[in-house]
């Protein structure tokens, strides 16, 4: 083993904290991973809202006031952008996670991803109409 090692094999160094700066693909991967921080934080915000809702009208109205804080609005804008990024990347890998075979042929990737996009737009529109935005 010692003699073999004397050939000094090439060991590619991987910087543990900065490897993702090396390639745009790694950066896109990390962006996708970071979406979970914002979606998780937003889920906690929803949880707080649910608590306020359970505490009565006054508590819930004060929660709505908190949503007006500039920091919360800035968080919403960032979280919305990253949530959409999560949605797009998630739908785009769905054909790989759920390959669908009809007879001999596999359903084209664009059809599977496209069906998800259509469903997403319809559901979002339904929620917006249901919530009285339109």
């Amino acid at each position, binding site marked *: 083993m010692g003699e073999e090692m004397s050939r000094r094999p090439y060991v590619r160094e991987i910087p*543990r*904290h900065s490897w*993702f700066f090396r390639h745009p693909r790694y950066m896109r991967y*990390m962006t996708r*991973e*970071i*979406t*979970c*921080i914002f*979606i*998780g934080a*937003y*889920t*906690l*915000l*929803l*949880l707080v*809202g*649910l*608590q306020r*809702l*359970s505490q009565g*009208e006054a508590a*819930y*109205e004060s929660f*709505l006031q908190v*949503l*007006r*804080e500039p920091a*919360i*609005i800035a968080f*919403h*804008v960032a*979280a*919305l952008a990253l*949530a*959409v990024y*999560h*949605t797009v990347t*998630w*739908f785009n890998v769905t054909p790989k*996670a759920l390959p669908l075979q009809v007879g001999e042929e596999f359903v084209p990737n664009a059809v599977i991803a496209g069906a*998800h996009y259509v*469903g*997403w737009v319809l*559901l*979002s529109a339904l*929620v*917006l109409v*249901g*919530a*009285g*935005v339109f």
Partner: protein
Amino acid sequence: MSKSNKPIVWGTFAAGGTVTAFVMPVLMLLTLLAGLGAVPQGLSYATLHGYASHWLGKLVIFAILFLSLWSSAHRLRITFYDFGVRADTLVATIVYLAAAAGTVASVIFLVRI
């Protein structure tokens, strides 16, 4: 044959990733509108309280919160590793405990409505 407990966590990650992909952007849009002063009718106390009073509404709210909490926790665990934090057992314990606490809290709040 040894069994892996990974499918349990991964199952909520897959389901949670799908559910958050579908509903989170539009929910964020609704609360953003509320923050900008244009509170949607659906976010008024009377409407939302009525929705959350029905068992079906409770079920939908719980499903979204539960799946989002657990999928975010799982992805956060991987993200910590990717950023170079190698204390995986500690990270996993913390994020999954947080998700469990959030799950319990959501049940308590829903029962009180």
